[in-house]
């Protein structure tokens, strides 16, 4: 991403000697991405309906009463009681920063998920959604919003019972829909084992069927609010997210990303092709399914909080690969940073773009901006690089 970033060059030469694993190019990605996230985050906390100056915003961000307050962190991360804080800190810490955090989590998940799927399917066009995850999630979103919007679930407990509107379970249902679609795709592709081509074909077909059903359901939506809500979910949106979304995504993100990091060597061996991996003693089917599961978990975590954000999972791995090479031990780490950079930057556009361009205070789905922002950069890379997209 920001290979030009000046902040990356100085610590680079110093740290290169520390370990050969973390090569200079990887540090470029890491520091460049951190710079983008920092700038994007600063813009996000500084601007919005509640106006404050840059200085005030920074003061609020580094307000020691919040940063070093365990009760505050308990409230953010575990949903405890929110401590007293001034209004600026409340706006920054409770409304604007969690949105940056969710964007970062979503970016990480999608980028790593895409990187895994590109290795598992040995396909340059693979994204987190190649095995039907997005269409399964999208169908469930439409079903919930249009068909079952009035349904409530009653969960009996020993003492009392919980009544939940099904719409409040939408994030979970969407994520589960994605996971189920993935399992359906895998089952269809399976015949004495499977292969990348079978998986991708099954994914495309199942995706097409589910998308048709999803589009068909739009006809039954009777008010514009439902349609807009459905579009926000199916193109991905960070509007209105707060710490609750961080709490929802964080545990799964940690699990998925930890597994992705420790599986990097398996991914590297998979890149040598099934035959070689198998003759090296890898149980290819098992590893492929397990790694796909990790990638789907990451994708599902991001769907649950942001809906179906396209494009990030496709292009970020390519961008990072372009800089650090195809070694997954570097690539996964690079994606952990570059994914958030793209998402945070795109969300700046999604949240503030309309007010700057049109003066309106509306927001657009971040999924639209990721395409608008990432697409041209990707094309620029393609023009510049002879060998692009080769895994």
């Amino acid at each position: 991403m920001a290979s030009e970033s000046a902040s990356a060059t100085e610590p680079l030469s110093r740290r290169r000697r520390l370990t050969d694993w973390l090569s200079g190019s990887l540090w470029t990605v890491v520091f460049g991405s951190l710079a983008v996230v920092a700038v994007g985050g600063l813009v996000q906390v500084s601007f919005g309906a509640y106006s404050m100056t840059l200085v005030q915003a920074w003061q609020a961000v580094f307000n020691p009463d919040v940063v070093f307050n365990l009760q505050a962190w308990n409230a953010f991360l575990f949903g405890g009681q929110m401590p007293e804080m001034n209004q600026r800190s409340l706006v920054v810490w409770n409304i604007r920063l969690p949105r940056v955090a969710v964007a970062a989590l979503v970016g990480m998940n999608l980028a790593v998920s895409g990187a895994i799927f590109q290795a598992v399917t040995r396909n340059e066009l693979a994204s987190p959604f190649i095995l039907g995850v997005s269409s399964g999630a999208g169908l469930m979103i439409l079903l919930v919003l249009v068909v079952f919007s009035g349904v409530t679930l009653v969960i009996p407990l020993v003492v009392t019972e919980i009544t939940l509107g099904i719409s409040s379970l939408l994030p979970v249902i969407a994520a589960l829909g994605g996971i189920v679609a993935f399992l359906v795709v895998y089952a269809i592709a399976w015949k004495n084992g499977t292969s990348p081509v079978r998986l991708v074909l099954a994914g495309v077909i199942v995706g097409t069927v589910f998308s048709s059903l999803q589009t068909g359901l739009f006809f039954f939506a009777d008010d514009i609010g439902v349609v807009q809500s459905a579009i926000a979910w199916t193109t991905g949106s960070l509007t209105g997210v707060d710490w609750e979304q961080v709490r929802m995504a964080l545990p799964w993100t940690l699990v998925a990303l930890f597994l992705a990091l420790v599986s990097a060597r398996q991914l590297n061996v998979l890149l040598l092709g099934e035959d070689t991996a198998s003759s090296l003693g890898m149980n290819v089917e098992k590893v492929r399914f397990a790694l796909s599961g990790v990638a789907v978990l990451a994708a599902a975590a991001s769907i649950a909080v942001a809906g179906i954000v396209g494009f990030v999972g496709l292009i970020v791995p390519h961008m990072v690969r372009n800089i650090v090479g195809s070694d997954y031990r570097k690539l996964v780490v690079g994606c952990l940073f570059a994914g958030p950079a793209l998402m945070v930057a795109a969300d700046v556009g999604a949240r503030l773009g309309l007010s700057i361009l049109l003066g309106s205070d509306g927001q657009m789905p971040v999924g639209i901006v990721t395409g608008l922002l990432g697409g041209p950069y990707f094309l620029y890379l393609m023009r510049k690089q002879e060998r692009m997209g080769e895994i």
Partner: protein
Amino acid sequence: MADETPEPDGGVDASLEREDARDRDGDTGGGTEGATAADVGGGIPPYRSNGGASEFSGEDLVIGYPSADEPVVDDESISVAPGEVTALVGPNGSGKSTLLKGLADQLSLDGGTVLIDGEEVHSFETKELARRLGLLSQENVAPDTITVEKLVEHGRYPHRGFFDGLTDEDRAAVDRAIDLAGVDHLRGRDVGSLSGGQKQLVWIAMVLAQETDVLLLDEPTTFLDMHHQLEVMEIVETLREASDKTVVVVLHDLQQAARLADKVVALQDGAVQGRGSPEAVVTEELLADVFEIEAEVVPTERGPQITPLRPLHDD
């Protein structure tokens, strides 16, 4: 041993296998004696050569692909004594590669068993098998940006647990493999920048880094220029002389097989048409029957010299 199999007509008498080509390599020490003893012994001898080479055999193998009804290899046996180099030869589509994949447990057998030192290959856990048996496929793909050293390190995959880093032993094995394959000067280069021949040597280094007792190579010299063909053959010769690996190599070039191998097994339509020493197998009759060519075969001290003359037609 393979002797139970009825020998198809036109082939070479199985008994030739006994008076094998070992005498042209009489100075190779203990492995040679052991190999002969194993041959005569018939069944599966408990013998292990000092270098740790393994007796390797496939018995009554029926191997096919799930998509086809007819098996490619139907009820054939093959046996390789410890430390020997056996070449599989045959025309295109004769089942050489299929047989090799079956022997490596990469294709499931429809019948028969493959044994390493009397233990059934299929019963091994996948990594355990990859520590005993290495297979180099015909076509290999690697990312362009991986360095030679990293690629060879992947050869240590079966020796490493999920969380294990490279141990000193792994590094030593990688060094030995790179050294033996003669690719030390390429060590830091990206695989994508290498020529086809250099790539092949690097892949061989990766398989060597597995440090298996049994090594199966599928057409390692095909598509290489002469220099790299000879490089590959030199590696195999080194392995034969060290006598601590049992090698089965599919070769397209019969001349190379004749020069390189202790034993040659000639296949046609998935059936063994001849087996034994190169001198016994590479004959004008066999070339006519199996390869459908008319050729002149002159015995030399580097094995039989083949001069192909013209193709033969059945009709």
